């Protein structure tokens, strides 16, 4: 079977090679071939052996790390729906409902995103980059369940073209594309992205919603505490964007990312510490009820942890130096909580906070590297004296 597949690929290869009839599709062929088979290229010089890891492996690890949150999110979509309608539910009916809502969004996201990626790779005669494997899954996971598919498609197209390909593709972008997609929706269709009537799906197919507030929405509305208990929010049985609610599922993903070394523990820790510090400062000020909310509530409400684990740690858009990662993470956490508590316009501060720090990451790195440079210069001067 595998041999046949290999023979098929070998037979097709000349058609897609330079001079072949389908040369204009060679990136597409490459993408599928390398998806099925790790390429047989060998080293030429330098290090004659290479680590077994490649970008595909890195990205697939991110996708695997997202699975717990995705599966829980699917179940929770059904759970929220049936809780709101009061219908009887089972584990499987909840999951089925969520899957029916979630899968079309994922399919649309991948379809639109990969089509654009393939087209750009083709135009540039590059290999197709794996970055979108993670981005394409992340986007449906951070929008409200009632987001229409055409909006998902539009947001993905905007993010991939404007935030990524315009800068040269994966590795060259300075803003996290998944968050750009969400920000696009947030500002283009604000009524679809916030308020009380977007978080719980009303039916199997359409975009009808049942009213139901998220913990963050309640806090914005002036509550002293979210209605949901701390335990509910940790488990994740509360309203929110599709897959951001469960702290436990996100924690499993975090462990996968940290053990595999794909995500930076410095950034994750930085975000958590930064958010906590800001929360404690607000607790000390205590000027209003939101400020009096114990700081650890910020960890369990909204997308704070999802952002800390999966968004802030995107290596391309984060700071690249180790010290820079600490600063970058701390500031993300700090701004996220600051935006939540004192900004009247947005209930959730995580998205904007990460995008803001994306913009500042190069500056942070510049300063960190400048210290190293000036240390080297000083050392040189001392010698010459």
């Amino acid at each position, binding site marked *: 079977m*595998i041999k046949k*597949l*290999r023979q098929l*690929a070998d037979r097709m290869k000349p058609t897609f090679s330079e001079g072949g009839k389908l040369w204009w599709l060679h990136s597409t062929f490459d993408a599928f071939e390398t998806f*099925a*088979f*790790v*390429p*047989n*290229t*060998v*080293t*030429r*010089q*330098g*290090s*004659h*052996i*290479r*680590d*077994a*890891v*490649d*970008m*595909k*492996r*890195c990205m*697939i*690890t991110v996708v695997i790390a997202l699975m717990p949150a995705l599966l829980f999110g699917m179940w929770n979509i059904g759970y929220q729906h049936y809780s709101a309608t009061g219908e009887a539910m089972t584990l499987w009916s909840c999951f089925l409902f969520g899957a029916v809502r979630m899968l079309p969004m994922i399919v649309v996201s991948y379809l639109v995103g990969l089509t654009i990626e393939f087209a750009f790779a083709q135009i540039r005669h590059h*290999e197709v*980059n*794996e*970055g979108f494997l993670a981005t394409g899954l992340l986007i449906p996971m951070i929008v409200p369940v009632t987001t229409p598919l055409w909006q998902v498609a539009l947001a993905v197209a905007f993010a991939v073209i404007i935030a990524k390909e315009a800068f*040269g*593709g*994966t*590795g060259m972008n300075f803003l996290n594309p998944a968050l750009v997609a969400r920000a696009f929706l947030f500002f283009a269709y604000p009524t679809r992205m916030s308020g009380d009537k977007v978080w719980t799906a009303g039916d199997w197919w359409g975009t009808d919603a049942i009213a139901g507030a998220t913990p963050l929405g309640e806090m914005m509305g002036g509550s002293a505490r979210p209605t949901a208990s701390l335990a509910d929010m940790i488990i994740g049985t509360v309203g929110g964007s599709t897959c951001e609610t469960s702290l436990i599922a996100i924690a499993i993903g975090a462990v996968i990312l940290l*053990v*595999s*070394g*794909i995500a*930076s523990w*410095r950034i994750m820790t930085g975000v958590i510490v930064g958010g906590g510090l800001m929360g404690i400062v607000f607790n000390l000020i205590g000027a209003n009820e939101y400020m009096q909310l114990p700081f650890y509530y910020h960890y369990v409400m909204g997308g704070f942890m999802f952002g800390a684990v999966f968004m802030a740690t995107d*290596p391309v858009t*984060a700071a*690249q*130096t*180790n010290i820079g*990662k600490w600063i970058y993470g701390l500031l993300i956490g700090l701004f996220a909580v600051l935006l939540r508590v004192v900004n009247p316009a947005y209930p959730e501060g995580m998205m904007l906070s990460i995008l803001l720090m994306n913009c500042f990451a190069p500056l942070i*790195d510049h300063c960190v*590297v400048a210290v*190293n*440079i000036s*240390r*080297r*210069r000083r*050392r*040189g001067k001392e*010698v*010459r004296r």
Partner: protein
Amino acid sequence: MLIITIHKGLDIPMAGAAGGTITDRRDAKRYGVSPKDYVGLKVRVVVEEGQPVRKGDALMVDKDDERIRLTSPVDGKITKIARGERRQVEMIEIERCDSGEERTYDTQDLKASMLQSGLWAALKQRPFGIIPDPDDHPRDIFVSTFDSAPLAVDGDTIFKEERHREATLHGLVALTGLTDGKVYVGIDDASEWIEAALRGKRRFVFTKFEGKHPAGNVGVQISKTRPINKGERVWTMGIQDVITLGILAHEGKYEPERVVAICGPAASHPAYYRVIPGVALETLLHDESLDGKRIVSGNVLSGTRRACDSYLGAGDSQVTLLEEGDRHEFMGWIAPGLKKHSFSGTFLSGILPRLFRSSMRYNTGVHGGVRPLVMTGNFERVVPMDIYPLQLIKAAVIGDIELMEALGIYEVEPEDLALCEYIDPSKTEIQSIIRQALELCRKEGV
């Protein structure tokens, strides 16, 4: 004595280390000398095919400075002068035939003896990794007495014989005559006796290095003891060349030889040999089947690829055999990867390295496509220098000399970033990028 432990680095667990006794192959017949083993060296050939030569006779001289010469390691006859593109010399081949006469060198004027015998070419100048200018005064000279690269010859084997131990000491003392600065010697457990023997001598600085590869790289040792600043030059010499220097300085004889390990996961008979540099690889590899295998002169991380009828590279003390990895692997990017080595934790073998240590398989496969540099924070974990490797590599890619200088390009040689190249998921050819950048700096800069 300062003891420095290198925590940032990586020991690649690899089977196929040489061991046991040293087989003497100093009687081998065929030798080759190539100018391509020396960075930036342009030569003029001073011999003709068929001409008899004696050990230490010049075969080629540096076009810019005729005092620098590459010499014949044995008495014999020139059998071939191989030329490549634009008639550049690639290799001069010599067939040995001993004359029985021994030439003696002046032990007082050591610099002249080194230049005359050709041993001068074993010195390397940092920055740039070139043969140093004989009129130059280096800030210091650095010698690493051990090699931490995968499957390298171990110190106990090099220093086994009393004569070589003595020559090591003579060689190190001789080096103090080449600099107004100090001679920095990096040692490990197997070479600690050197410090004991030379204790109290002025102008020596001993530092003991422990820990992971690249602890034995002289570049790492320089950066940990006295880093190179812009405008400074230091010289380095391999430990086995120091032994040759010791014999030259003490006995006035040029006796180039070294212990070489035939090793590697694809070597069926890993073993140590004592040979004369430039020896034909076939004399060392006659026991091995070479089908589908790659011969690397040097270590797996920064050695050079050789044909089976080629010769041992100058300065190399191991020949590593590897399986070629030109195979398609079905869905390899999702396989659990029990037998694949990875610095990352994305394979089971990476999460539980101890468990799978002995079963790792290596080949020359790249294991992926070339991508932009996406992942960050990994290079720092294998470069134990005060340098930002990712930023330096990016500066090297765009050829920004000023930025490279600021980021410390003069402190590195490609071998110091070899581990970055190994672990890079983007499969960038980092060592050749660094070499080209250094050549650019050498031609344009200072």
